[in-house]
């Protein structure tokens, strides 16, 4: 174990574990966004022929999973574990989507960090020799999330500038110990950080300290520096959260200005699409990883990426009781070369 653990929160993956296939399905608004061409499928309306938004979200997960498996060329029997989670209470989107999958599954809740969380655990499962192929998948749906966390869609209210827009989308990856990269090389697991932000319309500020902590810890644990990466990308801090994160990281002596991006800011055109601070939700980082990042890494535009999923761990009950919002961020290093 000594060889694998680096510092307090990071493990170095010592066998080549590849992302062998990815898939993403998004809603119409995301399809019209700047990354629209990278997704496998854009659904025409948010209900997708189902009776409820929750069912539509489940269907997205199910179909995304089918696409991942299809593209990988593996059979269902070869998949050892499914790691899945979403934003809905008791993770019903994932649990209902995989009712008939017949594959051992771990249900995860990491709020919007679920993509990075599931990929972290999946990588470690394979590195530990407990699995050959693992599918990590997650989803979010604007309508079901609004319904659960905020107000009815048709209620005439205004959103403050720091508010974010939950992505309608499902994205996932298959990890395997046989493959030609990109490889997951480091896993930095975040700890919960709560700096006392209570405004659920300002989740970027609630999550930024956690993201900054994970990024800085990753550098400290591994001895790497920001310049070792072409891209450091956080999940869904939005424009304001990104600004805060950048500042918090630089206060600790690391300059990430030149190669830092945020999925929440890429998934929509916030001016044209009126999404205020940007995108959010589990789907936000998941579809960006499965679509844009994976394809651009395959093309060689990026070779070393630090992908940091960020989550705001609030519930409607905690918010009503006046609790602050704990944040979490999980980092994985994805590299085209395995050393």
């Amino acid at each position, binding site marked *: 174990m000594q060889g694998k653990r680096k510092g307090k929160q990071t493990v170095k993956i010592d066998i080549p574990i590849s992302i062998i296939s990815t898939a993403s399905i998004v809603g119409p608004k995301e399809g019209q966004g700047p990354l629209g061409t990278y997704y496998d499928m854009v659904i025409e309306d948010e209900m997708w022929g189902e009776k409820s938004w929750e069912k539509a979200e489940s269907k997205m997960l199910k179909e995304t999973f089918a696409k991942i498996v299809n593209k990988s060329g593996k059979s269902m029997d070869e998949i050892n574990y499914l790691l899945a989670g979403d934003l809905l209470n008791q993770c019903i989107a994932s649990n209902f989507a995989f009712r008939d999958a017949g594959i051992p599954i771990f249900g995860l809740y990491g709020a919007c960090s679920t993509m990075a969380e599931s990929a972290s655990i999946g990588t470690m499962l394979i590195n530990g020799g407990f699995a050959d192929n693992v599918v990590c998948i997650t989803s979010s749906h604007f309508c079901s999330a609004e319904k659960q966390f905020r107000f009815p869609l048709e*209620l*005439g209210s205004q959103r403050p500038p720091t508010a974010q827009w939950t992505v309608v989308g499902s994205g996932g990856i298959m990890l395997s110990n046989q493959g030609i990269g990109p490889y997951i090389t480091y896993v930095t697991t975040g700890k919960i950080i709560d*700096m006392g932000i209570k405004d659920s319309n300002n989740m970027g500020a609630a999550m930024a300290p956690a993201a900054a902590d994970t990024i800085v810890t990753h550098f400290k644990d591994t001895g790497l520096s920001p310049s070792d990466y072409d891209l450091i990308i956080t999940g869904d801090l939005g424009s*304001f959260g990104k*600004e805060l994160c950048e500042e*918090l990281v630089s206060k600790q002596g690391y300059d990430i200005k030149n190669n830092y991006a945020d999925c929440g800011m890429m998934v929509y055109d916030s001016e044209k699409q009126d999404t205020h601070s940007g995108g959010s939700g589990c789907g936000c980082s998941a579809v960006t990883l499965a679509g844009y990042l994976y394809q651009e890494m395959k093309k060689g535009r990026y070779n070393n990426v630090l992908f940091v999923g960020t989550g705001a761990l609030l519930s409607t009950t905690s918010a009503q009781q006046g609790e602050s919002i704990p944040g979490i961020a999980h980092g994985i290093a994805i590299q085209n070369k395995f050393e």
Partner: protein
Amino acid sequence: MQKLFTNKEYVDYVEKKAPKSKMARNVIRAFAVGGLICVVGQFINNVLTAQGFGKDMAGNLTVLIMVFIGAFLTGINVYDDIGKFAGAGSIVPITGFANSIVSPAMEFKSEGYITGVGARMFFIAGPVLVYGISASVVVGILHYLIKF
């Protein structure tokens, strides 16, 4: 991280730095749209009065019609757009009250008519009703005791 800031310092810093809503613009929009809704109400009221309805009856009918308009615009997915533009301007008038009841009713239809529509219909307007009615009872009792 904790060493960099205390929670209070961070919250204050975020508050200071967060992009703010455009107050002047929002106030003007709220004033204009809220005023417009009231003008429509007044127009309906005048028409009804001209039709020979008494003052009380015309008032009640106006409320009825305005609530219907609010509910109808919610049902055809328009009221939320008005609300996004006007903010308090479309929340405060009685049309906003209709919107706050119809929108959850639509939203929770997938949970059925009893536990969904029926139970959730008042989850936004409920507090307004509870405290509005309670206040009117208190004022009524006071009025009875102190004949002013």
